[in-house]
């Protein structure tokens, strides 16, 4: 079990600002404005926000894909703006993006996963070990010699995740990595990253706009207009119904239902997030009446 005192910081941002290049004659718009965030090692953090809220921009600063226009980002204490540290930083924080087809480079699964460690100059016996471990970690060992383009979307994303794992990073950042997947593919990816977090202690930062992907997270960070507007446990965040709606986000149906029932005078808690908890709470309240 982790204790409070051993928690170290994985990623830290200080007054982080970022602006995309402005159109001619238009004012510069800050996609990130003074973001202060500390992500603990071994935690599972979901970042929510509508399109344009800055959540993907934030993710891309976590391993130096984007560099701050102001403020700092530190990965295990290393400044992402320091060019000499960039390679080390990217070995610590791996990214998985939205479209599985844009992330696969080789014609055979094992070659694809070996791509990054090869580039890092890892000896070949060690590469073999890492590829096998990475495939086992995402539950895709039997596909080692398959052609990636014949796999389903969920399988391709797991291959992309395995490609990141083969670098043996401490943290994996998924930037809307489930957006293009069907419910089964989404479930495959989510259970894979939850297992990596639980069993290997890997820090996970999951950027999404699917509320239900946040149910099991340790922490939910909500972005709006380039700023962090909420930060807490799923229960704390999802029970702030009005504030979420005002930011163009929805609340889980469980919370919506409980909110309505409370207004109807039923004695139910607002924070029974999962289907099971929600049904149990309602059944209890109705039986008591």
């Amino acid at each position, binding site marked *: 079990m982790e204790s409070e005192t051993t928690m170290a910081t994985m990623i830290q941002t200080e007054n982080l600002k970022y602006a995309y290049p402005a159109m001619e004659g238009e004012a510069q718009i800050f996609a990130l404005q003074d973001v202060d965030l500390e992500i603990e090692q071994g935690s599972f953090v979901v970042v929510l926000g509508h399109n344009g809220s800055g959540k993907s921009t934030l993710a891309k600063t976590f391993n130096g894909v984007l560099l701050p226009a102001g403020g700092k980002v530190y990965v295990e204490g290393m400044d992402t703006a320091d060019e000499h540290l960039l390679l080390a930083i990217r070995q610590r924080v791996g990214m998985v993006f939205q479209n599985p087809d844009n992330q696969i480079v080789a014609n055979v699964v094992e070659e694809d996963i070996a791509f990054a460690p090869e580039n890092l100059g890892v000896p070949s016996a060690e590469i073999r070990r890492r590829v096998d471990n990475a495939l086992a970690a995402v539950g895709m060992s039997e596909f080692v010699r398959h052609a990636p383009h014949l796999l389903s979307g969920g399988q391709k994303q797991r291959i992309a995740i395995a490609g990141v794992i083969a670098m043996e990073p401490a943290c994996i950042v998924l930037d*809307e990595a489930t957006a*293009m997947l069907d*419910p089964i593919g989404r479930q495959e990816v989510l259970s894979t990253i939850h297992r990596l977090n639980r069993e290997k202690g890997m820090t996970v930062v999951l950027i999404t*706009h699917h509320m239900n992907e946040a149910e099991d997270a340790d922490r939910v960070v909500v972005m709006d207009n380039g700023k962090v507007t909420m930060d807490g446990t799923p229960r704390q965040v999802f029970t702030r119904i009005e504030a979420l709606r005002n930011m163009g986000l929805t609340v889980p149906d469980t919370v919506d239902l409980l909110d309505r029932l409370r207004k109807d005078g*039923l004695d139910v808690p607002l924070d029974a997030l999962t*289907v*099971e908890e*929600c049904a149990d709470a309602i059944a209890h309240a109705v039986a008591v009446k």
Partner: protein
Amino acid sequence: MNGRTEDCPRRHWESAAARKERENLESILQIKHLTHTYGVGTPFQRSAVEDMSFDVYSGEFLGIIGHTGSGKSTLIQHLNGLLKPTSGQILLNGKDIWAEPKKIRDVRFQVGLVFQYPEYQLFEETVYKDIAFGPANMGKTGEELDHCVREAARLVGIRDDQLFKSPFELSGGQKRRVALAGVIAMEPQVLILDEPTAGLDPAGRENLLANIRDYHRNKKRTIILVSHSMDEIAQNVDRILVLKSAHVLMSGAPQEVFARADELISAGLDVPQVTRIAMRLKEKGLPIDPAVYTVRALEQELLAARKGGAAC
């Protein structure tokens, strides 16, 4: 207090068959014994669609759901003649679309297909020209063309001042609207949308679906919405067709389909969160109709259950 829910008077909903009867709906598309086999004669031979038969009624909002590999994409590409059946027929207004293969282009004007991520297919210099491309190819010119373009833009919520911008200056959600307008501008009798909201955030999804619902309401045209979000399908369509491994597993009004939630789950499909809550409450002995799929409907069920103690 038992779980008997079938004939409660307070639940007014209509089966798809009853609705068809009442509204006297006619078939616009008829799919008859459609089979499509990829890689015939190779070791990879596989039927993506196998002996599928169903009708699409004129003016209805039909949802098609099925998980990846169920045959959704192959099926819809047959409906406007992009793929030719290995066997079986597609009838549009009673006529086999392949009766005269040279006229297949006309079928594509009548059955408009909006692909996944259609914004990647934008290519013109301005939004206006992009929307005008389809109807211009149909032979429309001058005022008639202008009217088509502006009306389609209005239907999907593109403002006049955006018409002469480059489509590439727009946001992702706006680009998708432009692509949708380009198909609507051809005034197809049937509009097929393949995962129209994929990748959009909740507000973007709801806005786009509201545009599609408005289009359906105002134009009374047939819409086929393909999605793997059961929630999205449930909230929008009149009738659902569920596909499973190249076959039609079931079809009916949302309530008819969700009443068979266990089968949906075993077909690898999602059931709306509300339906799952209702199923669990019913298991716990509450007199709840497990086929409800909206928060409001389940709230009503629960209030009634609390008041009466009995189901009705």
